[in-house]
């Protein structure tokens, strides 16, 4: 199927110019890793829905930061432009079309662009401007979140980091990030971490970004099985990065090539983009070499945390591929 055909009646009318009619004159700042992000063109209802969704991360006035602002312009689109999708048994997805300078996306009742030059910016079209009840609010929040996490994934790559499909667990020693395919145990290890008195950032997605000393992990305000209550910004030094497997407790270093390959498989959205794959790979190589990547085989009975805590920070793997 060509781009947009799943979701749009007339994919040929997909907006190319990043313009149109806004839903209103409201704007909102949302500040977390890669941001601040500034939404404009919002209706009053949309703004209220985003404030409810992003809680303490949102504000009316620009945060005092020196980082580039990522603007996200919101525009109107008619509900009738979207095809109905039978949701029973449907695995959530959206269409992406990768270009050298931008990515366009069409999904369930939304369309959008992510531009990369001169800096990252977003454009988002939604048919939901007036949100009269909780269902409409939830639908709008869901649309924005699905687009927003894609934009954040790209923004992190632009900043030298990555969005990782992973569980992030924090102890007083620092943050451990566990990644692996679906069913590898991200939610399980998160629950075990909670039971062990550790703090769970997310059991679904975490942001990894370089700073002057290494990499930091930041909690993202996106949904996971363990809920999505947004809290204040929470950044932690990354001390362990582990691919997950269930089995007898054991920790072994991964060879660099294998580590990067496994990380790539867990870096959603961008890993399918031929134009940004090289940048993502560079970032993950840097991550792997600076932090080190291990394979953690863990038992549901627990007992593996001491193995992790004993890992030396920056235990870079030096073995050849």
């Amino acid at each position: 199927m060509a781009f947009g055909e799943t979701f749009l009646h007339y994919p040929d009318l997909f907006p190319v110019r990043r313009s149109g009619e806004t839903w209103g004159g409201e704007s909102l700042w949302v500040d977390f890793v890669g941001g601040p992000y500034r939404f404009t063109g919002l209706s009053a209802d949309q703004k209220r829905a985003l404030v409810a969704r992003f809680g303490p991360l949102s504000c009316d006035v620009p945060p005092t930061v020196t980082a580039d602002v990522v603007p996200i312009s919101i525009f109107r689109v008619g509900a009738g432009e979207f095809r109905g999708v039978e949701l029973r048994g449907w695995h959530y997805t959206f269409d992406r079309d990768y270009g050298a300078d931008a990515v366009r996306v069409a999904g369930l009742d939304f369309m959008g662009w992510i531009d990369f030059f001169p800096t990252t910016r977003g454009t988002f079209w939604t048919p939901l401007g007036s949100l009269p009840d909780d269902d409409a609010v939830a639908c709008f929040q869901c649309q924005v979140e699905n687009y927003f996490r894609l934009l954040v994934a790209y923004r992190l790559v632009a900043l030298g980091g990555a969005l990782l499909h992973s569980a992030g667990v924090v102890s007083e020693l620092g943050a451990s990030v566990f990644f692996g395919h679906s069913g590898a145990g991200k939610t399980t290890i998160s629950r075990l971490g909670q039971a062990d008195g550790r703090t769970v950032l997310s059991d679904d997605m975490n942001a990894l970004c370089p700073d002057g000393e290494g990499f930091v992990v930041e909690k993202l305000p996106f949904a996971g099985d363990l809920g999505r209550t947004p809290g204040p910004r929470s950044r932690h030094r990354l001390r362990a990065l582990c691919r997950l497997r269930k089995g007898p407790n054991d920790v072994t270093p991964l060879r660099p090539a294998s580590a990067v390959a496994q990380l790539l498989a867990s870096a959603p959205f961008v890993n399918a983009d031929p134009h940004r794959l090289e940048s993502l790979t560079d970032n993950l190589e840097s991550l792997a070499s600076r932090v080190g990547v291990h394979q953690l085989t863990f038992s549901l009975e627990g007992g593996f945390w001491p193995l992790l805590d004993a890992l030396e920070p920056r235990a870079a793997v030096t073995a050849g591929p």
Partner: protein
Amino acid sequence: MAMRRIMETTWNDNILFSFLVELTYRCNLDCFFCYNNLGLEGRPLTDEQYFELFEDLAHLQVMNLTFTGGEPLSHPSFLKLGRKARDLGFVVRIKSNGHALRGRLAEDIRREVDPFLIEISLHGARAETHDRQTRVPGSFERLMSNLGELKALGQRVKLNATLTRWNEDEAEDMMALADGLGMLVTISPTVTPRDNGDMSPMSIAPTDEGIKKLYRLYDQRVSDAEEAATCTGTPALDKNCGAGAAGLAVDPYGSVYPCVQWRRPLGSLHEKSISEIWGQSPALAEIRRLNSAAKEQTLALGDEAFGMSHCMGLSEEKTGDPLAIDDEARRNARLVQEVRRERTLLPVIR
């Protein structure tokens, strides 16, 4: 003769004859020189407000209703609004980039809106020239294919081109392309600034030589016999143009203007009906006064005004004074006159 009489009657007696609707600034192409003010904000008109507008216009016995944008087809209710316009008996025109005019959408428009004419933008005779302007690779190839489809559907299509530095060497080829498709083509020598005053589109305004070449081409295409047959005398007009006299335009947020090019607000459809604006707007009375003054000013210039197209909207945008004849209008007149002199001195072999 009929058109001349209609012009004289509508312009001189202020009879609203043509109405242009900018439905949306959304667009599925991204032309470099687009004049839309993309920073404009407001509350878009609802379908019900458009229906009311169309009914008022029908009551005022308006004949032409033109949908433009952005890309007007991008308006979520385009088919519904087009159908209403057809049902009310307007001569419906659509100004489109043509990119989506294929398959089911083209058929739906033909069947449900049945426009008198679709005017489609052409930016060059070659793919690289056209696509450079639209900034969408493949848009030329798509357009050629879509024009074929429209023709097969029996849809009347006219091509509109603007001469630019990028395509001025392709004017003849654009005409040949239109001829090959059996379609009319108009090539305008005027690139305009954006409606927000941004002059960047002017960076690709055509050269003097490019414009003269275009005028020579027009000369060659109109034989003396054709000229004689179509020359029905100059209409006796007391205004410079039809802006605010026989025509009006409205933007997606309901602001009414004398013309798509003259963005002096006359009123808002959120506050008043079009009948009220047409009948009572003091701003419109001033527009008509200026329009007559511009005509007198042009007449006073005598031969100097030959070939001069004084756009008061452009003048107001560029200089702040709608009566000031801007450099672009003077340049065009000079070039028309130079070509005319060439024609007098050197007989054209046809």
